[in-house]
């Protein structure tokens, strides 16, 4: 990396004055790849920060679930919640969906980038395709979880304490979930070139995953078919540790805890939170891998 400035001929002095600034593009290295990842990531943040309307609109859905569904069904549900407010019960699930849907939209930006041509600008740069995909996924994850922070700020309203351990844990889980969903979305977006088809496919997949995940109900005592689906749904393994984390910091009776936070079991074995988190992480990385592979093999 060296620069060579050459004297300009007097007749063609550049408008800015001074000599021509000549830059050189270095050989590809780990450092340049990291820089590329960083700038792709940064772009997502800049675009998000510029779009205040979206910050507001994407809050509508989680708030509807939390306050309208939570308050509306309170009376019906009160028999089974052992004195815990339904809104409190729903809170961990809402922390998950608030990032899920935004992560999905973040992945959609990949399709927009292709449609508006910007993807080409990135594709002809002397960087690996993987750096672009990784930057996109990390950017999507960051944006989605920053939205999650806003929902997390409502904890007090639904009687969840502002405990530092809880906050850090929730953020970490949100980041992980957002990353996995973005990776999934980008994996789809690499192949689907039309915005409408992409949103259709995403909705077709993400909405059922969300409903089945147990974000809105405890994952025990379900009918057999739903239990099977719930255990197969990767999202369940993000919702469950989130709920466990929040309930660890609630002051409620053991009976209520057992009823509302039964945990996920595999053939009677109580799956530990660590395994659940690993399931989500491995899946996210696997989908990132597929996305990179597919993106690298397209011309």
């Amino acid at each position, binding site marked *: *990396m060296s*620069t060579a400035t*050459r004297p*300009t001929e007097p007749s*063609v002095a*550049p*408008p*800015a004055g001074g000599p*021509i*600034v*000549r*830059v*050189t*593009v*270095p*050989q*590809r290295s780990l*450092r*340049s790849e990291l*820089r*590329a990842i*960083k*700038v792709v990531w*940064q*772009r997502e943040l*800049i*675009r998000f920060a*510029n*779009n205040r309307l979206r910050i507001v609109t994407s809050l509508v859905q989680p708030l509807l679930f939390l306050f309208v569904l939570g308050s509306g069904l309170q009376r019906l549900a009160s028999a089974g919640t052992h004195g815990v407010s339904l809104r409190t019960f729903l809170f961990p699930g809402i922390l998950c969906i608030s990032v899920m849907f935004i992560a999905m939209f973040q992945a959609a930006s990949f399709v927009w980038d292709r449609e*508006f*041509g*910007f993807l*080409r*600008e*990135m*594709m*002809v*740069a*002397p*960087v690996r395709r993987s750096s672009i995909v990784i930057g996109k996924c990390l950017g999507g994850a960051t944006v989605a979880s920053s939205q999650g922070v806003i929902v997390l700020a409502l904890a007090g309203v639904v009687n969840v304490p502002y405990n530092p351990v809880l906050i850090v844990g929730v953020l970490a889980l949100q980041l992980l979930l957002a990353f996995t969903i973005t990776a999934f979305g980008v994996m789809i977006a690499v192949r689907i070139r039309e915005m409408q088809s992409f949103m259709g496919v995403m909705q077709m997949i993400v909405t059922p995953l969300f409903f089945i995940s147990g974000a809105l109900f405890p994952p025990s005592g379900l009918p057999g078919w739903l239990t099977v689906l719930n255990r197969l749904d990767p999202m369940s393994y993000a919702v469950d540790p989130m709920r466990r984390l929040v309930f660890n910091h609630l002051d409620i009776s053991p009976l209520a805890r057992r009823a509302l936070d039964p945990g996920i079991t595999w053939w009677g074995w109580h799956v530990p939170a660590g395994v659940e988190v690993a399931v989500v992480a491995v899946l996210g990385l696997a989908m990132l891998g597929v996305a990179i592979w597919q993106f690298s093999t397209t*011309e």
Partner: protein
Amino acid sequence: MISGDGKATDAIAVRGLTKTFDEVQAVKGVDFEVAPGEVFGFLGPNGAGKTTTINMLCTLAKPTSGSATVAGHDVVKERDNVRRNIGLVFQDPTLDNYLTATQNLKLHAELYGVRSDLVKPRMDQVLHMVGLWDRRDTKTMTFSGGMRRRLEIARGLMHSPRVLFLDEPTIGLDPQTRRSIWTYIRQLKEQEEITIFMTTHYMDEAEWCDRIAIMDHGQIVALDRPETLKAEVGKDRVTIHTDDDDAAIASIEERFGIEARMAEGAVAFGVPAGEEFVPRLFAELDMPIRSVSVSRPTLDDVFMSYTGTTIRDAEDDHAKHRNRVMMQVMSGMRR
């Protein structure tokens, strides 16, 4: 780092390059070299294979056969080295319109790994060069088509490429903006040590180039300096409007032994001394002539003399062909 098969002195060297899509051969074996510092124009109607060729040179498409080196690097084997040394301005816009001009340029510099302390000075320079310094902190969505194109040229220059590719840099712009873009390109050539490879289908623009290659149906049909190509045609172009064009063509052939053709709705033909021929034309052609014009050979005539059609008519043909194929496909689907 110079690869074995490309001459170190050439900015671009192309040998027997072909590209086949499914069963359509878009580029049918082209050869040419571009010297460092040259402004080289690729001229031809839409669908002639210009963009496909540029895509292969920019490493965006793999050649079916043949080879090419750009800035001394093989476009297939040393893709990254080619990319480090080229700047690109695509036919379709590729700016992020939600970012400001500066943000777009910075992003590019980061992607290309430009040394951090040089990003700002270089950015200021290219912004001045294309006259967008005053608008640098405005989001590009508010830019006009011409401003966007200028910013894209500035962005293509951010990393001081050795070869700048411009694919139809002035397409869809009004004449005034086109002229200003050309002023920037000429200015750029004086200021930077750079080779410019561009495609266009505007004949008048090709005259700005040092050399041009005329492409038609995937092949290069002529390649030389614009003046040389025009001199080779040698004849002035006479265009007449009559009430019965077919009869006029037949009559011109019969009386003067000159082959005339329909071009853009008028009868056109070439003669060595146009002005002196016109009085004879009026005297000897036994039909009324509504208007007549004589012009010195232009690149349009060059194109016509090599391909037998004007560039605009060639495009209409391509469009008709496309429509025909579409109709066949659609009627096939119905059946």
